[in-house]
C-alpha cells in the first residue's frame, strides 16, 4: 500500500487556481519533498492531504484511507506542522507537549523514543512559555508536538522558512533520523538546496508538478552542459550571454551566471576569449554540475515553450 496517493487533485480559490490536476504517489517510509516558490500550491496540497481543505476535484488517499470520507481515521495517524507556528504561546513547552499528547489519548512517555533526540535540545527550557522560545526552538517544539501521537505519516509545511542556516541543517538531520524510524515524511520547502536531502521531490510551479523524480535523477537528466561564468560588469555580461548564439539560457546565480551552452560548438576557452574581446575583466568560465535550481529553471523554461 502506498503511503500517499494523489490523483488529479485540483483546487481553486475563487478565480485563482491553486492546484491543477496534481497526481503523484509516495512510498512507505519515503522522505518526499514538495519544492517550489511561493504560490506554487505547496500549502494547499498539504492542507488537502491533512484533511483541512477539500479538493474541488480528484481524489487523495492517505495510508489507503480516503482524505474526504475517512478524515477522522487519517487525523489519528498523521502529524501536521503548519507553516506558521501554531502552538499555544501562553502554555509552556511541557504543557504544549502534554496537551497535544492527551487529546490524542497518548502520553509523552509512549512516544518519547521518537522525540527524544529533538526534545533533549529544548528540555532545558521546558517550563518556558512557547511564545518566548527562539525561532529554531519553536520549530523543534512544533515537530515534537506533531510526533507526539506516533504518526505513521508526517506533513511539514515549510518547516525551515525563516530559520537560520545552522538550524535548517539540524532540522533536516532530524527528519533523516525520523525517516530511519520508518515514518513517511512529506515536506514542502522553497529552498532548492534542501531538495537533495529528500528521497524524491516534486518540483512545483503555479499549481502543477513540473517533474517528480529523485533529485539525483533530476540533475542527471539536465539536458545541456552547464558553465559558470564570471566577469565584470556582471549585469551587462548577463545580457551579452543571452545574446550569444551558442548559449541556450543564462541565469544569475549569486556571484556567477549559470549558462547552458551548446558544448559541441564552443569550448570554455573560446567563450572566455569572446568575452575578453567584449571588454570584460576578470573573466572566468568553468564547467559545473547543475544544481536542482538549475534544473528547475530549465524545466520552467521548457514548460513555457
Amino acid at each position, binding site marked *: 500500500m502506498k503511503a500517499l496517493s494523489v490523483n488529479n487533485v485540483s483546487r481553486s480559490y475563487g478565480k485563482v487556481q491553486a492546484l491543477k490536476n496534481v497526481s503523484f504517489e509516495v512510498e512507505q517510509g519515503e522522505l518526499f519533498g514538495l519544492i517550489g516558490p511561493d504560490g506554487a500550491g505547496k500549502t494547499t496540497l498539504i492542507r488537502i492531504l*491533512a*484533511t*483541512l*481543505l*477539500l479538493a474541488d476535484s480528484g481524489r487523495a488517499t492517505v495510508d489507503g484511507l480516503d482524505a474526504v470520507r475517512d*478524515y*477522522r481515521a487519517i*487525523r*489519528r495517524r*498523521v502529524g*501536521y506542522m*503548519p507553516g*506558521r*507556528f*501554531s*502552538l*499555544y*504561546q*501562553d*502554555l509552556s513547552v511541557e*504543557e504544549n507537549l502534554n*496537551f*497535544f499528547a*492527551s*487529546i*490524542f*489519548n497518548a502520553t509523552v512517555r509512549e512516544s518519547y523514543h521518537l522525540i527524544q533526540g529533538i526534545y533533549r535540545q529544548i528540555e532545558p527550557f521546558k517550563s518556558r512559555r512557547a511564545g518566548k522560545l527562539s525561532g529554531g526552538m519553536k520549530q523543534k517544539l512544533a515537530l515534537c*508536538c506533531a510526533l507526539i501521537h506516533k504518526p505513521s505519516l508526517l506533513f511539514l509545511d515549510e518547516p525551515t522558512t525563516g530559520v537560520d542556516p545552522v538550524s535548517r541543517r539540524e532540522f533536516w538531520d532530524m527528519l533523516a533520523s525520523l525517516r530511519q524510524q520508518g515514518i513517511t515524511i512529506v515536506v514542502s520547502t522553497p529552498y532548492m538546496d534542501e531538495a537533495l536531502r529528500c528521497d524524491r521531490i516534486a518540483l512545483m510551479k503555479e499549481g502543477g508538478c513540473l517533474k517528480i523524480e529523485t533529485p539525483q535523477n533530476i540533475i542527471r537528466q539536465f539536458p545541456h552542459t552547464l558553465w559558470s561564468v564570471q566577469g565584470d560588469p556582471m549585469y551587462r555580461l548577463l545580457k551579452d550571454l543571452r545574446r550569444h548564439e551558442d548559449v541556450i539560457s543564462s541565469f544569475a546565480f549569486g556571484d556567477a551566471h549559470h549558462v547552458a551552452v551548446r558544448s559541441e560548438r564552443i569550448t570554455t576557452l573560446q567563450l572566455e576569449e569572446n568575452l575578453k574581446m567584449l571588454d570584460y575583466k576578470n573573466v572566468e568560465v568553468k564547467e559545473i554540475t547543475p544544481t536542482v535550481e538549475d534544473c528547475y529553471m530549465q524545466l520552467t523554461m521548457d514548460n513555457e515553450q
Partner: protein
Amino acid sequence: MLKFLIEKEFKQLLRHSFLPKLVIAMPCIILLVFPWVASYEVKNVSLCVVDNDHSTLSSRLMQKVAASAHFRLAATASGYSRAMQSIESGDADIILEIQPSFEEQLMRGGEGQVMLSVNAVNGVKGSLGSAYLLSLLSDYAAELRSERIPAPAVAAVGSIRLLPTYFFNPRLNYKAYMIPALMVLLLTLLCGFLPALNIVSEKEAGTIEQLNVTPVGKLTFILAKLTPYWLVGFIALSIGFALAALLYHITPAGSFGTIYFFSAIYILAISGFGLLISSYSDAMQQAMLLAFFFIMILALTSGLFTPVSSMPQWAQYITVFNPLKYFMQVMRMVYLKGSGIGDLLPQLIALCGFAVFSNTWATLSYKKSK
C-alpha cells in the same frame, strides 16, 4: 479528552494579562457607577420664577418650591420675556409665572393663577419636572385651604384623600429595580463578549490549525470553550451580589439558588451566542464589532431602561427573541417579588430554548475543514 481541553482553557484564561482583572473590575465598576448614573429620578430642575404679585403668599410659594430637592431656583426674572431668555440660553428648564393679584384672588376666595412654561427638549425632564411642580402646587393649595377653613368645616364639605400603596418596592427605590438588571448586563458583557473573542483568537494565532488535525470533536471543542465562562459568570455575579448588599442594602427577596440556577442557563445561552459570532468571524475586529452591535441591540430592547410594554407592537414582537429580556425579568422578579422557579416557568422555557438553539448552531457552524 474534554478534561484536558477545559484544563487548557483555564490555564490560558488565568495566564491572560488582562482577563482575570476584568472579571473582578467589571462588576465593581458597573455596580459602583451605574446605579447612580442610570437613574429615572429627575433632580435639580432649574427653575426661573417670575413673581408679578410680590405678595406674602407668592413668596411663600417660591420658598416652598425652592426647598424641594427636585428644583433649583436658578433665577428670578422681572418679566416673562426675560425669563424666556433664560430658557433659550439653557439656564432654566421651567418658568413659573405667578400672575398679578395672585394673593388678592385667593383671599377673595377666587382662583390664584400660575403659569408653567416648560422646556421640552429633554422630554423626560420636562414632563417629570412639570409633574413634580404640579404636585407641589396642589400641596400648597391644600395647605392654604386647611389654614383658612377650620377643620370641622372641611370635614363637612368632604374631600378625597389619596393613599397609594406601592407593592414590592414600597419606597419606589429605583436602585432596587435597576441593580438586578445591571447584573444581567454584567453577565451579558462578560459571558457574551469573551467567548466571541475566543475562537477567533485561536484563528488569529493559528492554533486552530493544529487543533483541527486532532481527533477533537466539535461538541467537545465547544463544551470546553463554554465551561470557563460559567465560572467567570458566577464569580462576577457573586461580586455583584456582595456589592449590592453592602453598598445599597439590596438583597433578593427570593433565593440565591433560583438566581444561580437561571444564571447557569443564561450564561450557556449567551456564551453560545458569543461562540457563534466567533466561529463566523475571521478576525478579532470583526467579532468585536459584531458582538458589540448585537449586544447593544439586545440591551436596548431588553427592558433595561424602558419597559417592554411601552414599546410599539412590532418592537415587542422582536423582543420575544431577546434572551436578555427574560433573564432581566427573572432577576427583577426574584430580587423584588421573591419569585421561585415555579413562578418563572415561561422564562425558564425561553432561556433553555435559547441555550439549546445558540449552542447547537455554534457547534454546527464550527467547521474543521473547508
